[in-house]
C-alpha cells in the first residue's frame, strides 16, 4: 500500500467487523424499532401507525416481570462475584503449575450445552430427586418442601450458568497484578488485609467491572433458567418476550419490550460505570 494511504489501514481492519455489525445488529434493530410501532395481527398483517403508545402500555403491563428480572440479575451478579473472586484469586496467586488445569475446570461446563446443564439441575433439584429425596429421607426436610419452581432455583441456576463469565475476567486482571506491589505494601507496614484492600482489590476493579457486565446483561434477559427451573411467580422479562413473540404473535408488544429492556440495561450499566468503572474507563 502506498505510504500516503497508510491512514486507511485501521479502517480496513474495522471493515469486516463493522459490516457484520451493520448487517446483523443495526439492520435488525431498525426492523424491530419499526415493528414495535406497527399495529395489526398475523391474519390482517401489520401496518405502520407510529403507535408510540405501545411503550408505556408494555411498561405498565409487565413492570412486575421487569423489576423481578433486574432483582434476579443483580442477585446473580453479586453471588457470582462473591463466589468467583476467591476462585479467581486462588488460581491467579496460588495456582502455580495447576493454573491451566484450574482454568480449564472453570470453563469445563461450557463443554456441555446450556440447556442440558440447566435441565440437569431440574433433575438434581426434583422433589424426589437425588438431593431433596436424600434430605427428606434422613428427615432434614419435610416431605412437602420444593426447591424447583422457586426464586431460589432460578437464581441458583443463573448463578451456576454465568459463574465462568465472572471468574475469567477477574482472573485476567488479578493475574496481571505484580506480586511485588503487595510485597511493597507489606514493607510499608500494611497488614495482609490492608494490602488486599489498598492494592489488590483496586487493581482488580477492571475485572470486577467487566465480569459484572458479562454476568448482569445476559442474566437480566435470560429466559431458559426461569422456563426450566421456575414457575409463574419467577417469570422473567425474557419469558414474556418469548411468549409474546411465539405464542401470542404480538410482535409490536414483544419488540417494544425488547427495546425497553435494552434501554433499562444501558441506563443501569451507565450508572454502574459512573460509580465503579469511571476511573478505570477514563484514566490515562
Amino acid at each position, binding site marked *: 500500500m502506498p505510504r500516503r494511504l497508510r491512514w486507511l489501514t485501521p479502517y480496513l481492519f474495522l471493515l469486516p467487523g463493522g459490516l457484520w455489525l451493520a448487517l446483523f445488529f443495526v439492520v435488525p434493530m431498525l426492523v424491530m424499532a419499526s415493528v414495535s410501532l406497527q399495529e395489526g395481527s398475523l391474519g390482517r398483517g401489520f401496518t405502520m401507525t407510529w403507535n408510540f403508545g405501545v411503550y408505556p402500555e408494555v411498561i405498565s403491563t409487565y413492570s412486575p416481570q421487569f423489576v423481578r428480572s433486574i432483582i434476579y440479575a443483580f442477585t446473580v451478579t453479586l453471588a457470582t462475584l462473591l463466589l468467583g473472586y476467591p476462585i479467581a484469586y486462588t488460581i491467579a496467586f496460588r495456582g502455580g503449575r495447576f493454573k491451566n488445569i484450574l482454568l480449564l475446570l472453570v470453563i469445563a461446563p461450557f463443554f456441555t450445552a446450556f440447556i442440558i446443564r440447566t435441565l440437569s439441575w431440574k433433575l438434581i433439584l426434583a422433589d424426589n430427586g437425588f438431593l431433596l429425596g436424600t434430605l427428606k429421607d434422613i428427615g432434614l426436610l419435610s416431605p412437602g418442601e420444593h426447591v424447583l419452581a422457586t426464586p431460589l432455583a432460578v437464581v441458583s441456576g443463573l448463578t451456576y450458568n454465568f459463574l465462568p463469565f465472572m471468574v475469567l475476567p477477574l482472573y485476567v486482571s488479578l493475574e496481571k497484578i505484580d506480586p511485588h506491589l503487595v510485597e511493597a505494601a507489606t514493607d510499608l507496614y500494611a497488614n495482609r488485609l490492608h494490602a488486599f484492600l489498598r492494592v489488590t482489590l483496586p487493581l482488580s476493579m477492571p475485572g470486577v467491572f467487566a465480569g459484572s*457486565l458479562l454476568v448482569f446483561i445476559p442474566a437480566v434477559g435470560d429466559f431458559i433458567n426461569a422456563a426450566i427451573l421456575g414457575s409463574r411467580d419467577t417469570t422473567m422479562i425474557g419469558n414474556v418476550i418469548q411468549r409474546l413473540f411465539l405464542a401470542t404473535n404480538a410482535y409490536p408488544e414483544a419488540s417494544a419490550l425488547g427495546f425497553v429492556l435494552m434501554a433499562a440495561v444501558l441506563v443501569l450499566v451507565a450508572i454502574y460505570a459512573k460509580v465503579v468503572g469511571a476511573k478505570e474507563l477514563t484514566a490515562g
Partner: protein
Amino acid sequence: MRTRDHQSPRQAQVLAAVVLTIVLAGCGIAAQSPSPVATNTPAPPSAQPSASTAQPSATAAQTSAPTDEPTQPASVTPTPPITGHVTFGNWPLYIDIDEDTGKYPTLKAFTEQTSIQVDYQEAINDNTEFFGKIQPDLAAGRPTGYDVIAPSDWMVAKLIRLGYLQPLNKSLLPNFTANAADLFTNPWYDPGNVYSIPWQAGLVGIGYNPTLTGREITSFADLLDPAFAGDVGMFSEMIDTMSLALLANGVHPADATLEDAQAAQQMLLAAAQRGQFQGFYGNDYYDQLAAGNLALTIAWSGDISQMQLWDNPDVKFVVPSEGGLMFVDNMVIPNNVEHLGDAYALMNYWYSLDAAVPLTEYIGYYSPVAGVQERVIADSEAARADGDTEWADQLLQIAHDSVPTQEQLQNIFPYKQMTEDEERAWNDLFDVVVNG
C-alpha cells in the same frame, strides 16, 4: 511506571468486554427478529407504498398477504410428480420404532412399496412453538422444509384461517375415502376435511398418581383443591386449559363468550396466585408426572397409557366429571411444498390397514382408520394361540383403547372455533395466569 504500563491494556480489556456484552445483548434481542421481518405484511394493497418504505430488509419484498387467497393449484394439477423423497414433521413418541435398529418399520414398508424415502422428524413439541418456527417461511411464500406436518385441531383451524395450507385432492387419497372412521371425518376445525386428514387422536383429561394424591381424582375441581397446592400441573397451551376450566364452570367451550372466558381465567388465576400450580407444561409434563414431581396434572390419554406400560404403572387417567376434550392431530400439506406427490402418497399410505394396525399396536392412540380395532383383536387372538399371553393381553388393552367408548364420548365436548381477535383476547387472559 510499572503500573502505568499496565494501564492501557487493562483499559482495552474493559472496553472490549463492554463492547462484547453490548453485542451479546443485541444478539439476544436480534435473534428474535426473523418472524416479524417476514410478517410485516401490509394487508390492504393500497397501503403498500408507505409500508414498504418502513422495511429496510430484503425479505420484505418477498412477503405476500396471507389472507383471502386459500386456493392453491393442488386441485388443478391432478397427479403431481413423485420425486422419491418426502419430509414428515411429527410429534415425539408418535410412531412405531424397531427397538434394535432404531428404524421405523412402517416407514420402511412404505419405502419398499413406493421407492419414496421418508425423512421422519420429531419436530413438534408444542403447537405454538412449531408455528413460530414455520410461520416466517409460510408468510414469505417459501417452502418450510416439511412436506407433511401434524398440527393439532385448533392449530389446523389457525393455519387454514391464515391461508397457509393446501386444499387436498381427495382423488389422490383413495384409502382415506375408503377407510376413514366416521367419527373423524368432517371435524369441527376443518368441515369436509378440505385441508386435513386425521393422524391420531386422544382425550384431554387428568393424569394422577394415587399414591401422591391419596385419593381417586374425578373432577377438574380436584386440580384446584388447596390440599394439592404446589403439586398440580397445567398445560402451557391456552386452548386445553381454558376449555377444561370453562367446562368446570358449566360452560360448553364451543358456545363460550368472552365473559365466560374471563370467569374461567379468574378461577385459574385465583388458584395460580395462591401457588396451586407447580408449572405450566408442554409435553414435558410427562416426565414430571412419571417421576412423581407432580401429583396430578392435565394430561393426554395416550401418554398415560404409555406411562402405565413403560414408566410408572401407578399413574391413572380420568376424564373430568365436568367434561373432557378430544384432541385430533392431523396430516396437512403446507403451501409451497417441494414433494407434493410424495406427500399425498405418504398420507394415503397411513390410511391402509397394513400401516394403521402396526402403528396403533405400538403407540396406542385412537386410530382414525376404520377396522383397526378388529385387526388388533385378531392379532391378539393369534398371539394367544401362539402362547404369548402377555403380548395378547397388551394387544387386547390396546384394541380397547384404540376407539373411544360411547361412555367416554358422552362427556367429551368440542373446542371453540375462534376468530383471530377472540384467540388474541383469550391468549391475553391466559397469559396473566401463566406469567403473572
